[in-house]
């Protein structure tokens, strides 16, 4: 099975102190450290596990600047067979639809049975996967937390629905799935693994290679524009339970049950 995973490089929320810049239109990016968007990492792991079962190849693709190479190398160190960097100055300022347009052009240059994305980017809107599916006229399922390959070009998938329940569906290939974290336990990649793939060439694609018109993507084509960033004001503080340990435990159980956290 040929699997394409669309990945994205994001500031790692656990290793950065996110602050607004002075203009208030973006976050302060000077000292940020970046990593692969976490759900995308689960998507790559899932793809690797699928090809380990049914054979095939995994390609990881990302749209962004030269810096994005670092996440591609990491995913190759995990085991992805190839990685592609889609980069062009003309892509700057693309909205979700723009990114989906770029990816669609890339998908059509190859032949993929299955396209995976992370459920959403940590700095994104969980829209690209669905838009890409629509543009390709492929079936789409979101929040997928297990995949089983069936005979006859079908997958059996389960999706996380409200309250932690699972919905089981069959879906025809080719399709696009957005992958929920927790679907697997991604393998660890250290510096050693990355070093081992340091010299593997990563092809880059731009507007010309993808046959895109520069007006179709980028800031000019964007129909959604970021206007502002703001840090929400502190709301009401946490509710403190007061009483003996036993009383608190009882109250906590009541509250959890009332909010649907216990069954």
């Amino acid at each position, binding site marked *: 099975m040929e699997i394409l995973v669309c990945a994205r490089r994001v500031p*790692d929320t*656990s*290793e*950065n*102190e996110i602050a607004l810049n002075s203009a208030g239109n973006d976050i302060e990016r000077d*000292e940020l*450290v970046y*990593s692969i968007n976490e759900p995308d990492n689960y998507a790559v792991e899932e793809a690797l596990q699928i090809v380990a079962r049914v054979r095939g190849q995994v390609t990881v693709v990302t749209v962004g600047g030269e810096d994005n190479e670092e996440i591609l190398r990491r995913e190759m160190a*995990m085991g992805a067979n190839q990685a592609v960097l889609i980069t062009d100055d003309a892509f700057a300022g693309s909205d979700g639809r723009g990114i989906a347009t770029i990816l669609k052009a890339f998908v059509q240059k190859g032949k993929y049975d299955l396209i995976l994305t992370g459920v959403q980017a940590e700095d994104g809107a969980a829209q690209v996967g669905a838009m890409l599916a629509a543009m390709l006229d492929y079936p789409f399922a979101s929040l997928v937390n297990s995949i089983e390959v069936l005979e006859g070009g079908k997958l059996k998938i389960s999706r996380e629905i409200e309250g932690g329940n699972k919905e089981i569906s069959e879906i025809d290939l080719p399709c696009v799935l957005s992958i929920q974290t927790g679907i697997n*336990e*991604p*393998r*660890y*990649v*250290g*510096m*050693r*693994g990355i*070093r*081992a793939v340091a010299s593997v060439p990563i092809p880059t694609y731009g507007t010309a290679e993808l046959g895109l018109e520069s007006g179709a993507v980028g800031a000019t084509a964007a129909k959604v524009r970021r206007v502002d960033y703001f840090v929400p004001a502190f709301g009401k503080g946490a509710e403190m339970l007061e009483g003996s340990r036993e009383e608190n435990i009882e109250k906590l159980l009541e509250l959890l049950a009332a909010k649907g956290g216990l069954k």
Partner: protein
Amino acid sequence: MMEVVQFAAPITSWLVPGRTLFLVIHILGITSFGYIVARRLLPLVRAARDPRFDRPLARLRNVLQFWLGQWKHPRYKVAGILHIFIFAGFILLAMRAFTVLLVGVHENFVMPGLSGSAGQIYQVATDYAATVVLLCMIFAIVRRLVFRPARYAVPARYGKAHTADAVFLLALIAMLMVADSLFEATKAALQAQQGQTVELATVLSLPWILKGALASTSLPMLGRIYYSAYLSHEVVFYFLLCYRPFGIQFHVETSLFNIYFAKLDQGTLKPVRWGVSDGHLDQVKSFGVKKFEDFTWKHMLDFYSCADCGRCSDNCPANAVGRPLSPRFITIKARDYAFQHYPMFGHAGNGQPLIGGIYSADEIWSCTTCGACEAECPLLVEYIDKIVDLRRGMVDDGNVPQSLQKPLQALESRGNPYGKMEKKRADWASAIDFKQRCSVKTLDKKNGADTLYFVDSITSYDDRMQSIGRAAAKILGHVGENFGILGAAERDSGHEVRRFGEETLFMALRDHNVEAIKACGAKRIVTADPHAYNALKHDYKDVPPVEHISQVIAKAVKSGKIKFKPIEKSNNVYTYHDPCYLGRHNQVYDDPRAVLDAIPGLKRVEMSRSRDRSFCCGGGGLMLFYEPKEEQRMGVKRVQMAAEASANVIVTACPFCMVNIEDAIKVAGLEGKLTAIDLAELTDQQMVREDRVVKAVEPAVVQQELVLGR
């Protein structure tokens, strides 16, 4: 007839002349033993290299102390003393066994040097030795069957009890002793009946008793007993010799070698691969131990040498709290694997993966590398290097628990496991009330100092532990040390990174730190973190000498630079918890205690487990992120030990111990009854300060945002 009864060899039984029979048994026994040992050595030949042929004097010293001197045995009184008797008996009887065996084919054989009176003295000694060994065997069998010490039990998940095998082997040795004594006694009885002078003067020894019993036996009967005793001795001897390599008694043969080749440098870790320099590691295809053959030959010898005494697991904190790790079975399972995959006949080895095979990942991650097992093992079996090698293999395969992946990634990108900003690494030193009293300068190429205070990640970033850092800095200032820190240029020491098997990341952290340390020009390093101390001392190369703050304090107390005021709460009882990487791995036991004892009015008690039997608090570094499967926290067990010792203040000298112990006090419900304090904090609190502010070395350059290497 005279000739016949003198020695066993000429006695003819049925048609086979004794001498021929004995010779056949000899050849058969020795050939079989040789073949068995050769098969046992096969995996060692295929194993990873391990250079252990250096420093013969240090190795001989180990042999004298731990093998001949049985140094570690008395740590367990009953079993230890029993073993010393048995060992001494065996040593004495070894030469006699050879003599007896050779007498079978050469009746007049006398071991060189053992003729005349020396021989008589030796005879007396061996008569008693055989008796003592027999008594020990009986005692050991009774102990195994009736008293059943808990540490010999085999938990269900590790298979069947080993009692039957142990008792069988003990019984065989007992039989050997009886056969030997009977042979001796019959010889004496025969000589007595023929009116010869009887040399058997060993009153109350087994041969003496047996001789008495045989006094009125007829001569032909004596001859038959004599012959049978000899034959039994020979058969049992060779059976034991050839059977031992199939079980725990192989240590009789291997222990000498295992101790001679034992690891000499405590606190260190073996490199990923011996003989491959750091620069060439990238060319090594696979890291660590993934299959049995990846172990070094010495580690395989460890597996053969284990006597299954259970002392390692009896002292293992992971085992004590129900984690899925028992060091004893790390060894036993590997030995069973070796026996199964390197059989006596047929093809050997198939390179099955060990993780998911005989070991589980959780088992290998459960170890805190505290070293309690190694401190206890009478045979100097190594565990930490094996655990780390197995982890290296797992890391190489990407098999790392999710809970550890984030901190490892943060260490890679930010140089600390918390993912905090590098520029905030020295923030602990800029607390207003602290800065007024003690200024800590940040060192670099331009701002040098004699002493570098290496803070490490937890003390730099953890709110609670920063207090230890400030106390250490105040102490250094108080004793007049010209010191500074690396600030943002410091990275995590990588001590646990290395011990969790991430060698490449460790090397990156180490190289960065070494460069920064060299650039600052400090002549010595002080740290208050035993893990950083061990890393700087043993894992780093070419850095200035390093001291732990407890050593600095102890020296200053001795020289009078630090004077203590009397303790205020005189009803407090203090106890000192030895951090593993200060105590067991570096033998700093006395300095912290000397400091405590120098504080007037401080009452100190020892916990039941202290010094090299200290009980790990739960582990440091990355172990704080690991989510073990356990019934109880190690720390909880530890604070309960402090409570049992009727202490109400636990003093420790490690920030990780502080995390675990303070948490454990809460979990154990001992809040209000027990508190914890770091030795540096206590020193800072009790130091007599002259009425001058600690000299401000320089205007604070604390917030220097120097980000090296990024």
